[in-house]
């Protein structure tokens, strides 16, 4: 327990320094948070935090920007931040999504990272509004002990602050932490705090100045498998003959407590409840409806343990790796499937075509460390451009496939640290003339024609030297 104590001391120091550091940015000072409620869901390895902030404009000028701040350790693991605001009166409320952008402030205390929420309507002086913020953290639960045997269950640490880190003064705040089971080894007490069932409650705390911080450490059982895809390459190949071929290459790792000692298959299969509670037995991939020709294989052949269930709205592919993944174990595999083109390819009014497809990883409850999406456009298509709802790195490549002469344009998009929430649609626009579809059949036909002409010619030419 030495390491956590030291960490607590370090965090205490941070708190101390934060308390004394006063934000000099004038635009921040006139906002305050009258009530904040935070719900942290630790039930899977992706930490979901729901933050409800009641923001009040105490200054004199209207403002439309609200800042969120995160400690640097959390900011590195932040996968997505969303902000919503409720519109309309009772019963007829609708949620409106707000723009959120990462912001750099020049004098951020202790390297705190910021996100700015842009309100739809500026908040006038004296008014208040309620913002719902959802953010997801990956790789934020640290297994302790770091190595477990087959029959042990997985215990993890989760570190956070009892007080919400905010550049604003918070009048009242409460934090609820939901653990996956009632088995909680220990948690830091910051009075008033108590635990009931699977919920730990911190607060309510009153009147805390900006950048208040109070580190907490929760040690609890989390047997959900830590499925992390280290690298995923999705290749979407468009064929105007009516097919969309998707190939996904996974490098999967179990990021939980490392496996220690032997693995006994007999124990594992005969007493599944006592053995390998945290092991990764199967994964569920949600594929689009009308999927066909699904395959699941790796570099040494087909992996027979998979099931496909299809209905009119969605397809579910249940896949088991070749061996159950214990902590630290890796596996690589490829999933491929075909889709009817008309479900995903559309034409714009100005004769351009666009592909509308999901960006993220189809596996449920999985973190993707690095995702590369490649859209292979048909040979002869021009002016590709991609529209993605979040920032990605983009570049173009050329790929040669069946009988290509000039090659196909490939739009490559890369993004790091993805969660299932990133499974939104993206569009790739391009122009394509249907005549290019006939290039390859014509090429083949002429090749055969020339071959037969050559045969006929050979049969009619006498090449012998002596007559």
């Amino acid at each position, binding site marked *: 327990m030495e390491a956590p104590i030291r960490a607590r001391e370090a965090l205490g120091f941070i708190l101390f320094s934060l308390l004394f550091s006063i934000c000099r940015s004038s635009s921040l000072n006139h906002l305050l948070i009258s009530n904040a409620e935070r719900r942290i869901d630790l039930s899977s390895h992706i930490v979901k935090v729901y933050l409800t902030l009641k923001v009040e404009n105490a200054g004199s000028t209207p403002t439309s920007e609200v800042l969120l701040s995160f400690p640097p350790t959390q900011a590195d693991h932040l996968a997505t931040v969303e902000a919503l605001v409720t519109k309309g009166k009772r019963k007829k409320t609708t949620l409106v999504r707000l723009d959120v952008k990462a912001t750099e402030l020049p004098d951020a205390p202790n390297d705190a990272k910021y996100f700015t929420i842009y309100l739809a309507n500026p908040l006038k002086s004296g008014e208040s509004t309620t913002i719902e913020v959802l953010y997801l953290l990956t790789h934020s639960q640290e297994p302790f002990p770091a190595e477990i045997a087959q029959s042990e269950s997985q215990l993890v640490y989760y570190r956070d602050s009892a007080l919400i880190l905010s550049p604003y003064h918070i009048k009242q705040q409460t934090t609820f932490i939901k653990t996956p089971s009632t088995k909680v080894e220990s948690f830091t007490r910051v009075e008033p705090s108590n635990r009931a069932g699977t919920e730990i409650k911190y607060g309510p705390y009153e009147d805390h100045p900006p950048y208040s911080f109070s580190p907490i450490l929760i040690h609890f059982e989390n047997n959900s498998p830590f499925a992390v895809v280290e690298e995923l390459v999705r290749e979407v190949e468009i064929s105007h003959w009516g097919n969309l071929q998707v190939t996904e290459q996974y490098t999967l790792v179990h990021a939980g407590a490392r496996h220690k000692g032997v693995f006994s298959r*007999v124990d594992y299969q005969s007493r599944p409840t006592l053995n390998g509670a945290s092991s990764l037995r199967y994964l569920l991939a949600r594929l689009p409806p009308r999927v066909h020709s699904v395959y699941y*294989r*790796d570099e*040494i*052949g*087909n*992996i*027979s*343990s998979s099931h496909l269930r299809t209905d009119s709205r969605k397809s579910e592919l249940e896949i088991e790796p*070749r*061996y159950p993944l214990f902590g*630290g*174990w*890796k*596996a*690589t595999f490829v999933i491929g499937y075909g889709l009817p083109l008309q479900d995903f390819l559309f034409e714009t009014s100005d004769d351009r075509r666009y592909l509308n497809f999901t960006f993220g990883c189809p596996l449920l409850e999985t973190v993707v460390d690095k995702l590369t999406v490649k859209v292979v456009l048909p040979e002869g298509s021009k002016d590709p451009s991609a529209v993605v709802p979040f920032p990605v790195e983009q570049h173009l490549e050329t790929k*040669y*496939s*069946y*009988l*290509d*002469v000039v090659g196909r344009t490939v739009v490559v998009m890369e993004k790091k640290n993805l969660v299932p929430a990133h499974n939104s649609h993206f569009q790739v626009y391009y122009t394509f003339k249907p005549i290019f579809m006939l290039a390859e059949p014509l090429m083949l036909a002429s090749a055969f024609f020339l071959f037969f002409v050559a045969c006929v010619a050979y049969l009619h030419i006498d090449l012998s030297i002596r007559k």
Partner: protein
Amino acid sequence: MAAPETSTAAVPTLYTNNTLRNAFGGVLSFFILLLIGVMAFSIRLFSVIKYESVIHEFDPYFNYRVTQFLAKNGIYEFWNWFDDRTWYPLGRVIGGTVYPGLTLTAGTIWWLLNSLNIPLSVETVCVFTAPIFSAFASWATYLLTKEVKGTGAGLTAAALLAMVPSYISRSVAGSYDNEAVAIFALIFTFYLYIKTLNTGSLFYATLNSIAYFYMVCSWGGYTFIINLIPMHVLLCIVTGRFSSRLYIAYAPLVVLGTLLAALVPVVGFNAVMTSEHFASFLVFIIIHVVAFVYYIKGILSPKMFKVAVTLVVSVGLAVCCAVIAVLIALVASSPTKGWSGRSLSLLDPTYASKYIPIIASVSEHQPPTWPSYFMDINVLAFLVPAGIIACFLPLSDASSFVVLYIATSVYFSGVMVRLMLVLAPAACITSGIALSQAFDVFTGSIKFQLTGASSNTEVDAAETSSSTAESQTDAVKTEKPEETAKNRPSRKSKKKEREHGEKPSTEAKAEKKRLLALPLESSVHCVWAAAEAYSAPSIVLTSRSHDGLHVFDDFREAYAWLRHNTDVDDKVASWWDYGYQTTAMANRTVIVDNNTWNNTHIATVGTAMSSPERAAWEIFHSLDVKYVLVVFGGLVGYPSDDINKFLWMVRIGGGVFPHIKEPDYLVSSLC
């Protein structure tokens, strides 16, 4: 063949009709050959359909890995490849110890496809190499048999070869082994030899050497060619069939072939140093002597010739004795008499079990049982004798070669079950000849009855049946003109000879149906064998139980685990059977593999496997082993696990380390 031309020329009124018919026959036989090729290819796809497109068994995995290396690094790297992933800590010089034919073939196909921008993986190319080459092999059979007994026999033999189970067992999709291309090379070399023998063309003789070179590249079984052809030459000389054609067929083959063979690194100087090749050199000398004698005989008067003979014989005998004495001394000085272990076990079937347990431990080196003949060549076993008889009527240079081929291959197949593969083409050729000749006789008798144009109906009727039957009726058709004219009396001595000619056509028709039923029934067996018996990839096992199909994929599970969860330089020890698969699928260094070139090393692993835990740990530790792969099939009832192989570990280990004694591991010694 020129025969139909002469017969039609004798009947000028029917000339145009017959050319048309010949042209039609040519096109028909082309399409039949195409169909045979398609059948040969597709009958081998059961494994892909029933299981998946995957490399089978053990050796193919090594070939696959070599091909991957070739595709990735190019030909020069391939020749210089020193593989440190196997035989740790010794390593293995791959470039100098493999027969590169198969690898180069598949590598070339892959390169060709990829340069046309057809992005097939190396694995796909490897999986389908064997079926493609079996189509080639059946076409080569057609050519060979056509040279021997005409188009009809050729088509029949090609159809039979396309589906003979013995060959299917070695060439289903995924069994990416040397034999896959070697059988094609073997038949094609024989074809070119016969072609040269028939034409006396130096062009074909050169092609023959090149085909022989390809065979040498492909398979160690090339020694069969280089011994069979000299035997045939000798046979021809002894039976007084020496001709300049024979000389052209043989002498360039030995000179060029040996030079080319020596280019292959794995053969190298073995092409002139080992006893397997001596027969060819001896016959080379003999054929020159004989040619010289014929030449002298031509220029001298008979009296002078006799004098010269006595002179030469007396001097020559003395020289020969001296040479032979030196040769024998040289050969005798080497412990194995200059023969490799595998060749010796062919000559003396008990040799391996006495001296080399490692050869004896391989199941495919065991002698076959009678049922395996029926399983592997099925109805051909009954047709072969008839075919041999047909070859004697009349005996030509080419047909005597077929007789010699079948006789030797029957012997070799009796020694080693693996060599059933060499027997299969011979059996197909002779059976094809037998069937085709029998059809000639029967349809001939029908034709005598129904004079005129009525023969067309019979052709139509037959065309509706299966492709096998079709090819045979075609055989009949193309042979007909030659048949009706002459040769009839000489071919009468077949077993059904009495029914011929004077017998009414109904009886001949009935007999023909009976004869048709034979290959049809056999084709049912062949398809069954291809689908059920020979298509299991052996790395995936399936079992049917009351609640459906169960798939056991434990091998690949283990290999995949090793591949992803161990360090890239870790050493994995296992019994040598799994060596190739571990290097190919798990990409980890192994101690021993299926190459079995170092008996001591295998014995070390065998000793470790059969020692108590502490001693075994020390042995494995000295070899830097971090993981040991053992296969236990007791829980699911998988019979060929390591417990089953355990006695061989003890035997092989005991062969080198005398403290391992087989009786210690047997139950009787405990009592």
